[in-house]
């Protein structure tokens, strides 16, 4: 019996943190202006001892002004989307659930766009509207996915994909008719993009929201393991199913809303990462949630680095990279599930 202990969870996280640091160094190094690892380490050392003023200004701009904020954004967004995906998978008992595939990201994007059109002056309105859009969409998709009072896996996915397509059309309509407004481009909202760093005033909101969302889902981890075996079974094993579902529903919507409000609808991260982590660390949510958070951060940092460098100096949206990897995996998992 290969037991899951707190120690094993910590070790798993430690290993993933090291990998994440490696990914961060790679992301700092690669780009239109390549920087050697030695320079990086030396400069980080100088910053650490409070002598950042000695750094060449061009270096400072590239590493600390451009690349690092973008990497931090990638870490936040990756962690949020992966944990949201793992949460939706348990909530809907569907291994293919993902905020993007289910249309939840599009709903969040539409909410964010509407808030920017209608009331951009209200503080924090964009993440709040994105959360509302996400929560409403997942509710709608949940009811679309029911047949004869039961949640049906394929109907749910189909309902989500159609909802995503419909909401994308609405977004395109709004973006086209309201062109010239101070809205980010269509590619940002529909494909996701990390080129806009997190605004200063949003940083703490985002950090706190992320921490609360992930902790809330993690607090139900043991219950989610049982929920995967069916609601009835879970009830008989002492799970307060209603409370757990409400917590995961709200927290996953918050995480999706936050991520989309700052990076648009980046797809498939919530599908790819939890599956890769199940394969690596097992499907117990007590290790899967932290592993997915870190794995998501790693995946998005790497995907964005690739998106920045593959056709340099032109940048691809990071969502194009994740979809290139995610769509085939989705098809593979779907085929395997149908056998």
């Amino acid at each position, binding site marked *: *019996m290969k037991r*899951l202990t*707190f120690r094993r969870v910590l070790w798993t996280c430690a290993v993933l943190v090291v990998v994440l640091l490696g990914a961060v160094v790679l992301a700092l190094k690669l780009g239109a202006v390549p920087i050697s690892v030695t320079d990086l380490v030396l400069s980080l050392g100088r910053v650490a001892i409070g002598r950042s003023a000695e750094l060449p200004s061009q270096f400072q701009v590239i590493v600390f002004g451009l690349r690092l904020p973008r990497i931090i954004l990638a870490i936040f967004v990756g962690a949020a989307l992966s944990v949201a995906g793992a949460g939706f*998978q348990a909530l809907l*008992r569907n291994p293919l659930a993902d905020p993007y595939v289910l249309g939840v990201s599009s709903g969040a994007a539409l909410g964010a766009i509407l808030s920017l059109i209608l009331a951009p002056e209200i503080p924090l309105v964009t993440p709040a509207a994105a959360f509302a859009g996400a929560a409403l969409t997942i509710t709608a998709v949940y009811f679309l996915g029911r047949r004869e009072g039961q949640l049906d896996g394929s109907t749910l996915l189909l309902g989500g994909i159609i909802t995503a397509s419909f909401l994308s059309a609405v977004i395109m309509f709004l973006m086209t008719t309201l062109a010239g407004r101070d809205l980010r481009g269509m590619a940002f909202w529909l494909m996701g993009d990390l080129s806009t760093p997190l605004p200063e005033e949003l940083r703490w909101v985002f950090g706190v929201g992320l921490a609360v969302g992930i902790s809330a889902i993690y607090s*139900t981890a*043991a*219950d989610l393991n*049982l929920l995967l075996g069916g609601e009835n079974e879970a009830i008989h094993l002492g799970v307060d199913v209603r409370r757990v579902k409400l917590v995961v529903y709200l927290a996953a919507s918050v995480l999706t809303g936050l991520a989309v409000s700052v990076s648009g609808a980046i797809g498939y991260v919530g599908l790819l990462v939890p599956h890769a982590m199940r394969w690596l660390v097992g499907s117990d949510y007590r290790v899967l949630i932290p592993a997915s958070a870190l794995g998501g951060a790693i995946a998005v940092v790497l995907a964005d680095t690739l998106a920045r460098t593959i056709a340099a100096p032109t940048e691809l949206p990071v969502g194009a990279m994740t979809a290139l990897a995610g769509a085939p995996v989705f098809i593979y998992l779907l085929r395997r599930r149908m056998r």
Partner: protein
Amino acid sequence: MSADSVRLNVEQASYAYSAGGRQAPLFTLEATSFQARSRELVAVLGPNASGKSTLLRLLAGTLKPLSGRVELDGFHTSQLDPRTRAQKIAVVQQESSMLFPLRAWEYVLQGRHPYGRTFHFESEEDFAIVENALEQVGASHVAERWMDKISGGEKQRVVVARALAQQPLLLLLDEPTLHLDIGAQVELLERLRRLAAENHYTVVVVTHELNMAAAFADQVVLLHKGKCLKVGPPAEVYRRELLEQVFEAPLDVEFSPEGRPRVSIRGRKETGLGSVPAQPA
């Protein structure tokens, strides 16, 4: 040992599934009463749509009786919070599907969930209980195997082991013999009898297998179209006219030397049916 006191007390418990609004209810379980002591095995018997599952849910506490009471050691089962309820009542349901495959021991370990806290990782004691439960049902050899890669009979044993890991007072089983061959059926029921005796459980089995209930139950609760027709030892409940009315088939009832009834299809004794299913397949 002194006589065991009453553990499960079902008193005039009824339930109605509402059709919404002022329409007549979709299904009603009329007032049902019986009592069970620890170490007793009760069979809830009846054809499909007789109210067996409703009664099971009332006992499990997932339904609140419309009138009357269902008490376990003096507590209303529907008023217990989910964790406490899962520490006292274990339910073995018909087939369930796993989204992600589990190993047998991981499945049994789920039975320890009601005893864990949010950030709890299972202790040595939990694992000892899991090993013991697997041993009690004779499934230690499949502990490391995947649940979807073992036979139906082995799977059923593992499912029962998970219920044992809950260390309940009351063990409820919903059609546990449904997908088992006759040998596995007998083995399961003999095992349940032994477990009830050794662990002082009260066991309630919902079934439509007349002869299995007759051979193993201390008490039979006979349901028909939402009515509780008779409660008592098999020898009292198994009356030919009563069973024929309930199961709508021509039946014969004989009694073994020990006084256990045995049911066969009238005029077909030579076929030697081991068990007569209530519902023609």
